[in-house]
């Protein structure tokens, strides 16, 4: 035998080796073959290897975008926008795209649970019959006026049912709330429209046809009211009309994602928005040679000083506004979150009136009513929530039902909800996920996920058309969940107080039936079954005509002044995380999607101007303690080059103590720094807060997509 191995021998040995390793690594039949479980009885409309598509409505926020969901062999595979839907016209946002990570979230509540206010999700599983007994007993034994319903922000079929239910039993009407509305300044805008135009409706800002937009505090490309619709508006504006591209100027203390897209960002001091708007109005009136009585008390130089911008800039901006063909002033978000927020909103609407663009293309309209012409029901303001918490604390509420909202996370802790809940005898949650509030409930009777549910939702804003967006299950329920409407109807029947609907679908049908007689809709049908089928197939029903309401001529006085915050070192600007929104923290892909402006993933940060950071000797990733009037949080620093030196900004969306493995114990919640200081419309004045900053001496490396070292070696020193 020679010492060398021939090539042929080597190959033989290698072949044997491969076969052996295949055996030893367990490459047996179990690894090779997988069993398939075909349908027992395949639905008629399903074909092997082909997808089925269903139209439904997105439930990630209250905007009500239409979706088309691709399903494959009974599983939801991909979410796309519904091209026919008036709100989003085939498009979706990041949160809508990640809906499936909610549907197939590993931390969903698997079935009815006797939670018993345990801090963690209880393992005491019940049957739905037991759940029904409990609910029926609650309906029997609780006096109607000692019952309370707290629902999520969407005006959906559940809300309609609970309104009927409450009226039927003789109890108080349900309350709807969501943290987004708190940050949007919705109530303030509606109140301003009411006081100025005499119509309580949400203003609709027609970006698409405007050519110069001054936007104050509204983060309309992120989470504000109907972001997909407003993004489409901006896109249309930018593509230009008659070859002229529209210009967006954003006034904000911090460069938000919206401001970063704007053509100009004017960093005005927090609280000076009203003064700046008023000064602009006075200057515009002067340029146009018209009286501006409401704004005579404001001098532009004072306003410029208050806003910390050069007076010439203000004059120049006013000139541009006065001479633009289709100017538009947009207001919302942090601009309204001051004690004088209502006056700011009124001033902005009045400035629009002065510019002559109220009810004109490229101007301000009021959002369409519901398809049946009824005005939209309003979400609760923080003031109303505070009153509600008081009611709970006083012990006059025996039974509290919570669905679709997580107030322990979404309301400032200083409102005292956690304490107030202890005075409620029984709390029933219908939560899909084990969020903070659900864990404090006595029972959790989980509702289906939005993609597993029947229903409808009124479109409150974002579409020119009046629309009722339809929901239908795209997959059968993944867990042992039950539709809350079904459950409530069944419980009422068992309690001997039935409503005249046999089940959820009958209820929905009864509400959709009136649409059949309306003219000018997206489809018609001669009889009810066809109409219902088309309603589901189209993803809703909407008018074909523009149904935006013309505001009447403005009236009333406006008095704006500089908002005066509490004492403190820095202005605090909490903002909703553009990627997570209010409820995205439990979806791993949203967690790993970088924040657009900072590229930070998976955590909370505080943004500090580089000069301020240098002065304080603070570097990136240093953990600091922010001490606000109501509490303190600890967050790592992100040195952000585009924020005012007197302002700190913290995103809202993280800081959960529950809500599943991807959310719990991650980041901090800035809402807990805030005292319940309100503006005149009852919205939270969250931007009227000052905080102190303390170093902790600790470091936490934020995960970010961008490099800490710039292209020219900036940050190299700090990185070492």
């Amino acid at each position, binding site marked *: 035998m020679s010492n060398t191995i021939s090539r042929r021998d080597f190959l033989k040995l290698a072949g044997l080796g491969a076969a052996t390793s295949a055996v030893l690594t367990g490459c047996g039949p179990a690894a090779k073959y997988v069993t398939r479980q075909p349908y027992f009885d395949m639905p008629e409309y399903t074909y092997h290897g082909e997808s089925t598509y269903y139209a439904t409505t997105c439930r990630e926020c209250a905007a009500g975008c239409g979706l088309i969901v691709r399903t494959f062999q009974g*599983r939801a*595979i*991909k979410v*796309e*926008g519904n091209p026919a839907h008036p709100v*989003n016209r085939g*498009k*979706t*946002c*990041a949160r809508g*795209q*990640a809906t*499936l*990570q909610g549907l*197939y*979230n*590993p931390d969903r509540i698997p079935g009815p649970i006797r939670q018993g206010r345990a801090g963690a999700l209880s393992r005491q599983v019940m049957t739905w019959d037991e759940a029904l007994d409990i609910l029926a007993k609650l309906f029997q034994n609780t006096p109607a006026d000692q019952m309370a319903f707290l629902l999520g922000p969407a005006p959906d079929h559940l809300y309609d049912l609970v309104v009927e239910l409450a009226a039927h039993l003789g109890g108080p009407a349900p309350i709807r709330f969501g943290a987004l509305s708190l940050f949007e300044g919705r109530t303030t805008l509606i109140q301003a429209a009411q006081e100025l135009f005499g119509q309580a409706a949400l203003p609709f800002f027609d970006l698409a046809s405007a050519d110069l937009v001054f936007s104050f505090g509204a983060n309309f*490309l992120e989470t504000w009211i109907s972001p*997909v619709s407003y*993004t*489409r508006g*901006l*896109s249309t504006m*930018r*593509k*230009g009309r008659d*070859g002229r*591209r529209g210009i967006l100027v954003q006034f904000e203390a911090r*460069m938000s*994602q*919206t401001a*970063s*897209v704007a053509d100009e960002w004017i*960093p005005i001091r927090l609280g000076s928005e009203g003064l700046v708007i008023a000064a602009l109005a006075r200057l515009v009136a002067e340029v146009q040679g018209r009286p501006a009585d409401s704004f005579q008390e404001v001098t532009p130089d004072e306003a410029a000083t208050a806003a910390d911008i050069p007076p010439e800039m203000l004059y120049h901006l006013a000139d541009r506004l006065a001479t633009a063909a289709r100017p538009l002033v947009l207001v919302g978000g942090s601009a309204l979150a001051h004690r004088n927020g209502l006056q700011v909103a009124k001033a902005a609407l009045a400035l629009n009136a002065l510019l002559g663009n109220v009810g004109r293309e490229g101007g301000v309209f009021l959002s369409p009513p519901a398809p049946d012409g009824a005005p939209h029901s309003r979400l609760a303001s923080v003031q109303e929530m505070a009153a509600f918490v008081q009611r709970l604390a006083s012990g006059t509420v025996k039974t509290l039902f919570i669905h679709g909202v997580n107030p322990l996370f979404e309301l400032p802790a200083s409102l005292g909800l956690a304490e107030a809940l202890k005075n409620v005898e029984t709390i029933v949650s219908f939560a899909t996920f084990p969020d903070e509030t659900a864990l404090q409930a006595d029972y959790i009777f989980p509702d289906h996920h939005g993609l597993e549910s029947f229903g409808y939702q009124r479109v409150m804003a974002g579409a020119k058309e009046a629309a009722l967006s339809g929901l239908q299950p795209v997959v059968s329920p*993944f867990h042992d969940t039950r539709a809350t409407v079904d459950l409530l109807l069944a419980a009422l029947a068992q309690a001997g107080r039935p409503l005249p609907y046999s089940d959820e679908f009958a209820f929905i049908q009864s509400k959709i039936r009136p649409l059949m007689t309306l003219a000018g809709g997206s489809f018609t049908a001669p009889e009810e079954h066809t109409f219902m089928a088309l309603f589901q197939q189209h993803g809703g029903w909407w008018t074909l005509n523009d149904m935006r309401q013309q505001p009447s001529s403005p009236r009333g006085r406006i008095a704006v002044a500089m908002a005066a915050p509490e004492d403190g070192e820095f202005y605090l600007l909490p903002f909703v995380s*553009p*990627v997570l929104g209010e409820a995205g923290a439990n979806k*791993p*892909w949203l*967690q*790993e*999607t*970088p924040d*657009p*402006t900072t590229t930070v*993933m*998976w*955590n909370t940060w505080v943004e500090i101007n*580089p*000069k301020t950071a240098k002065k304080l000797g603070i570097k990136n990733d240093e953990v600091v303690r922010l001490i606000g009037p109501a509490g303190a949080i600890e967050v790592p620093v992100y040195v952000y*080059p*585009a*924020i*005012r*030196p007197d302002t700190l900004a913290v995103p809202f969306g993280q800081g959960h103590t529950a809500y599943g*493995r991807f959310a719990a114990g*991650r980041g901090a919640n800035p809402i807990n720094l805030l005292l319940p200081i309100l503006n005149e419309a009852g919205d939270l004045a969250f931007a009227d807060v000052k905080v102190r900053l303390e170093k902790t001496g600790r470091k936490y490396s*934020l*995960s970010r*997509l961008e490099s800490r070292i710039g292209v020219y070696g900036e940050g190299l020193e700090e990185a070492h």
Partner: protein
Amino acid sequence: MKPIDLSLFGAKGAIVEAAEGKWGMAIDQDLCTGCQACVVACAMENNVPFVGEIDAGYGRSMHWIRIERFWEGEYPEIRMTPYRPMLCQQCGNAPCEPVCPAYATVHSQSERINLQVYNRCVGTRYCANNCPYQVRSFNWRDYTDERVNDAIATLKNQYNPDVTVRRRGVMEKCTFCIQRIHRAQDRAKAEGREVQDGEFAPACAQACPADAIVFGRIDDLRSRVSRLIRQKHGVHYLEELGTQPRVTYLVGGAS
């Protein structure tokens, strides 16, 4: 540019396209709002795994498309450059192709895009090293294995059956949603017609709320994308390297 047959240098499968490509994309940076809808849409369509906070901090996140932004100046004269969605440019002359020792990054002759053949990839990461756009991502762990990440046990229900689920040690990147290209072509062929312009779009373009991403045939002068990329403010990033990118960025907006 004269075609060079790189197979002369032993790089079989890598070609330089003399002709224009087939599929291309126009991204209008003036319309992009940086909203990340494309990023999430891409991940949902292509079974792109998430890696968790720690690995993401090490730069191991798997995004096939990312939104870039840069700062200019200092406060208060600071500007953010327009958002720039960066994805595989499907170069006609791709730097990643000739360096792969396993012939796993090859050029598709029929679709004229860069392919990543997962079953050939052995994870040398030469391609990622050579990509001037830094758009390739590497599976450092078995992120899609439920034995490693137990959340996958339920999350896997949303996996797209048209896209391979990748394992540890494999490089991956944007494919221009080749599964959608194939599906559209197959459907058109079954119906005996050509694929129409705008009949389908990759996940990113379909989701984009600002309509900033337009996809189509760049060898068809009538298609929407070719009309857009012939506008004078279209640029190809790093084209000075001779990569012949198939993604055209429109900068500056309408005049």
